[in-house]
């Protein structure tokens, strides 16, 4: 006979690990039961496309947080990189060149964040807020506040608007980034060192891990994710403005914190971030299909952020206040 107490423990453990996934599944069922349109393939692909930017930015933030550092600059860096890509394409740069500049801007800001945090010992909360402000200022200096709007070259737009065998290419980009990031943190030496740095920096240092380099790497990858998102966002909207990614800051953080409630509870983790982004995407889409007014969506998002922050506060505090140092 099985032990009821043991079964209860297993169930509790399963709920701890997959409670948020279960809640997502319940949301899907509720929306599916009450809206004919929700489970249509076109709508599911629509949700998958819509969470792509949030997921890629969230994966970058996850890597930074895994190294116990905050990157609050990713949204503004993304906007700046977007403006650079849009501006360069508008003045006739080749697509590859403009894309390379966008990615380089993201990576450069990430590296700068890393240097500020590890060499100058500026807490990442402050360092990345400062670089966010700098990125914002440069974006406005480039544009004068006026977005680059117009029909950009089709091959560039195809980076975000094309489909491969019926699958939107944005979904493929997202799958690629999530897979690469998960393989990186779970199986490669630098990835494992990065996570160890975040979890116990002093112990990692004693074990011979170059913890400062790991933090620089984590923040640089977050910047690179912002650069990639900028390219895809510009292609998706065929426009680039100095605040184009502003709204992703809160939602990106929410997705990561929500992700920290599942799969590996209490830890920033890539699959969890995907679940968090999906939760936000499903909720937004489902409520729209349900005819819910906009303020209900805002309230729901706020409730979810509160809940996820409540559960994942320890890691966030460690990153925000440098408790890992």
């Amino acid at each position, binding site marked *: 006979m099985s032990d009821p107490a043991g079964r209860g423990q297993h169930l509790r453990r399963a709920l701890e690990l997959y409670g948020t996934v279960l809640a997502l599944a319940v*949301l899907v069922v509720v929306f599916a039961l009450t809206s004919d349109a929700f489970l249509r393939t076109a709508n599911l692909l629509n949700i998958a496309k819509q969470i792509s930017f949030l997921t890629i930015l969230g994966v970058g933030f996850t890597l930074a947080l895994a190294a116990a550092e905050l990157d609050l600059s990713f949204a503004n860096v993304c906007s700046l990189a977007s403006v650079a890509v849009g501006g360069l394409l508008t003045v006739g740069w080749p697509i590859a060149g403009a894309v390379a500049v966008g990615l380089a801007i993201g990576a450069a800001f990430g590296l700068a964040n890393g240097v500020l945090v590890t060499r100058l010992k500026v807490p990442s909360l402050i360092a990345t807020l400062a670089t966010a402000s700098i990125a914002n200022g440069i974006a406005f200096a480039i544009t004068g506040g006026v977005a680059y709007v117009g029909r950009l070259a089709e091959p560039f737009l195809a980076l975000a608007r094309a489909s491969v065998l019926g699958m939107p290419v944005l979904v493929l980009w997202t799958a690629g980034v999530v897979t690469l990031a998960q393989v990186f943190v779970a199986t490669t030496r630098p990835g494992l060192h990065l996570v160890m740095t975040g979890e116990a920096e002093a112990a990692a240092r004693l074990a011979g891990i170059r913890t400062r380099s790991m933090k620089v790497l984590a923040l640089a990858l977050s910047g690179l994710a912002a650069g990639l998102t900028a390219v895809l966002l510009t292609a*998706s909207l065929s426009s680039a403005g100095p*605040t184009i990614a*502003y709204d992703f800051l809160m939602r990106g953080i929410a997705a990561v914190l929500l992700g920290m409630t599942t799969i590996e509870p209490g830890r920033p983790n890539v699959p969890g971030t995907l679940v968090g982004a999906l939760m936000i995407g499903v909720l*937004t889409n489902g409520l729209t299909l349900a005819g819910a007014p906009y303020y209900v969506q805002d309230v729901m998002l706020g409730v979810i952020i509160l809940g996820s922050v409540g559960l994942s506060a320890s890691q966030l505090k460690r990153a925000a206040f440098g408790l890992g140092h």
Partner: protein
Amino acid sequence: MRKVLGLAVAMAATLLAQDAGAQGFKLGVIAFQMSSETHARVANAVEAAGKARGWDVTLLNSRGSMPEHAAQLDNLVQSGVGGIVLAMGKTVELDAQLAAAKAKGISVVTVMSGTSPHTLLDVAVDDFAAGAKMATYLLNRMNYRGSVLLQRYEGNVSTRARGKVLDAVLSENKAVTVLDAHVMARPQGWREDVKAGMEALTLKHQGKFQGIWASFDGQAFIIDDILREKGVKKGDVALVSIDGGQETFKRIRDPNSLMTASVAIPFEVMGSRAVEAMEAIAVKKTAKEKIVAGPVLMVDTVLVDGSNVPADGKWPW
């Protein structure tokens, strides 16, 4: 967390249950930035006019975010609405989404959003004409001489057009000089941005300007408060802007306010016109050409100052 998520699911279920009971034409409304009074006035008027017809209306707010704007339009297209109204939307950036809506047979009417080959029509005012009314009024009020401060916003086609017309008017009236200009840079935090910028400029040029031009009324309100704090009296400086609204009229009536005049745009009327056009074309299947010949349905503006300001709660049209 599970309690929180349970609450979320319960709320969603309640809303869905409400939705299931709704009947008739389904209308989606997207306001680009509901925190902007003008966007909210249009969107709320559209919602009210739609509901008055017994329609099932979903009102969404893009919060000034382009990706959110595009995602909301995608979601409405998937939801099977019969029509969509965009309030101050971004039709150029939403080209792909609007094309998808058209392909699914969804009628799209926009308000002050610009034209698109995928939409039925745009309800708009002529911002160049409105800008000209205000620019010439300001100069006339200053007796065509003196100095002005400008509060510009280049990130919106309407406010940009108003600014360009002002430049044209000023270029022909050399006795009026521009002392300084502050350009609003942060749409999300625009109130703080305007406050900080204009506090600095009014301090720097204290006593040297006779007029202030603001690209929309929300900016003018902030400038009005700054001037009042500095002890500037009504009549010392002419403060003009464009948009109109009950707060604007209240300030024009207020003997302590510097607000001098505004070109009032009938946002509520524009919202109603958008719904009327939607009803005629999408519901009653009237040919679009019978509603308006071109892609824009123009609505007139009214210049309001102390001489014709309406009483509390009234409108000048």
